[in-house]
């Protein structure tokens, strides 16, 4: 069942068009990643979906509702972790959660929210004394306090340490398994690749690539990279390569097969391919390719 539907969305700041005709859908239980460089229009899209801005053109629906016109109902059923949002700096972590519990329908118990954010030990600490990563975790705890049906996560793990990042990923998976639709924007492509089922790459306000992550990556070429042995002319290699400094990079549909061929060629000549790296396509390849358009 479709939880988020965006159709022909246009959003402008004065004369600047931040989002220019974007369309996509996300279903319940799905993690949808919106990727792109800074200024690509991701956060503006999230702001429209969260009801902070009205679309200038096009339509958006969250759980079948207009987020701007039916904001109260949409907010009751959604969670928002905005890229930037402030706290009351003089409140403690526990008091902040208690306050937000008052603003949330059927909230999690305070202890559960603290544990979920990994902030139990910081319950009595004032928010102004938290690190950037801890504030982000508190942010996540507040966004998920009401077990939302749709969750908007705008750069959720920025500033988090690796442990907190993995805990966040686990929580996102858990919420998706429970049936929540999750719209994720992130600069960490590994994060998107691990979490998301589908994705769209935005550039200059438009979607330049979209689809299921597994299927999309399966359609991309992998790569074999190695340090070019001294005295070897790249033209002598059995496969075409591109040079990145002293590293030769060979794009291949089947990188394992390409690596075998290159290694066999080197063995015949008594050469070693040092720094050999063989991998299938990643989202980073797709992102760099898509953003470069």
């Amino acid at each position, binding site marked *: 069942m479709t939880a988020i539907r965006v159709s022909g969305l246009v959003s402008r700041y004065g004369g600047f068009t931040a989002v220019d005709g974007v369309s996509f859908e996300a279903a319940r239980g799905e993690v949808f990643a919106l990727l792109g460089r800074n200024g690509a229009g991701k956060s503006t899209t999230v702001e429209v979906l969260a009801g902070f801005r009205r679309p200038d053109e096009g339509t958006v629906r969250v759980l079948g509702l207009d987020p701007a016109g039916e904001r109260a109902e949409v*907010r009751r059923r959604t969670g928002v972790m905005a890229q930037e949002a402030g706290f009351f700096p003089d409140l403690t972590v526990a008091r902040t959660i208690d306050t937000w519990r008052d603003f949330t329908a059927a909230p999690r118990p305070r202890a559960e929210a603290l544990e979920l954010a990994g902030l139990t030990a910081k319950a009595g600490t004032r928010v102004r004394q938290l690190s950037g990563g801890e504030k982000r975790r508190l942010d996540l705890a507040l966004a998920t306090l009401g077990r939302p049906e749709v969750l908007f996560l705008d750069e959720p793990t920025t500033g988090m340490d690796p442990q907190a990042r993995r805990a966040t990923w686990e929580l996102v998976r858990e919420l998706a398994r429970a049936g929540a639709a999750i719209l994720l924007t992130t600069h960490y492509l590994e994060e998107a690749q691990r979490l998301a089922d589908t994705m769209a790459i935005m550039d200059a306000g438009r979607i330049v690539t979209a689809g299921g992550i597994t299927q999309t990556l399966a359609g991309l070429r992998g790569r074999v990279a190695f340090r070019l042995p001294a005295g070897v002319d790249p033209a002598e290699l059995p496969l075409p390569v591109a040079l990145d400094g002293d590293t030769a990079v060979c794009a291949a549909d089947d990188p394992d097969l390409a690596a075998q061929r290159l290694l066999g060629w080197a063995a015949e000549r008594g050469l070693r391919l040092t720094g050999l790296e063989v991998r299938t396509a990643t989202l980073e390849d797709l992102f760099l390719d898509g953003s470069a358009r």
Partner: protein
Amino acid sequence: MSLAATYRLGLHLFWRDRAMLAGSVVTPVAIAVGIPLLMRNVRADGIAAATDSFYGSTALLLSITAFMNLAVVLTGRRDQLVLKRLRSTRLTDAQILVGEIASTVTATLGLLLACLLAVHAAADVPLPPDPVAFAGFAFLGALTMAVLGAAWTAAIPRAELAAAMTVPVFLLCGVGAGAMGPIAALLPSWAGVLFDLLPTTAAARAMRTGEVAGPLVNLALWLAAGLGALRLWFRWEPRRS
């Protein structure tokens, strides 16, 4: 429930913000109690002078504790994106603003009543002839000034300028109600007419005399203007450019 929660939160934060307390509580209370006490002891017409200065200083209390405090606090919360975070909850925009305004009005009303009792006890300022009118116009004055303070945030480009941009307002209100001595008497007569139109002058007059009709119309018009401005121009987030 949510409105009660924002109200409680606003009151809690009002009394916890030590920097703001110095400006929005200690200073106006010191003026509203200290000056009448001084007048009582140094002037021949001590009680009358103390009474004049007390009711004049109610305009300062209204313009500082209600207007300035709310304008500064809301601008700060807007620029720190706290208002944006509140809007991501199930709270409606009205609940957020009403909670903020109601907590400021409560604090202002409490301070006005406390100051009245203090100057009555310490400076022999007589209790108001109509206590109901005093309480009613203290409330209406605080409400009007708080709404105007919230609306004024639209004119404040950033939080650092908030306090400075409210100073002219409380200076005008203070002079207009006579809290700063007989400055108004030195100005052209048309200035006096304009000062009489200020909401704080009307509220101070009603609290002192029990006059209802004129001050009620004045405050109702200012309140309507403030609500209209809030609806049209209030910004929940800082400008992006």
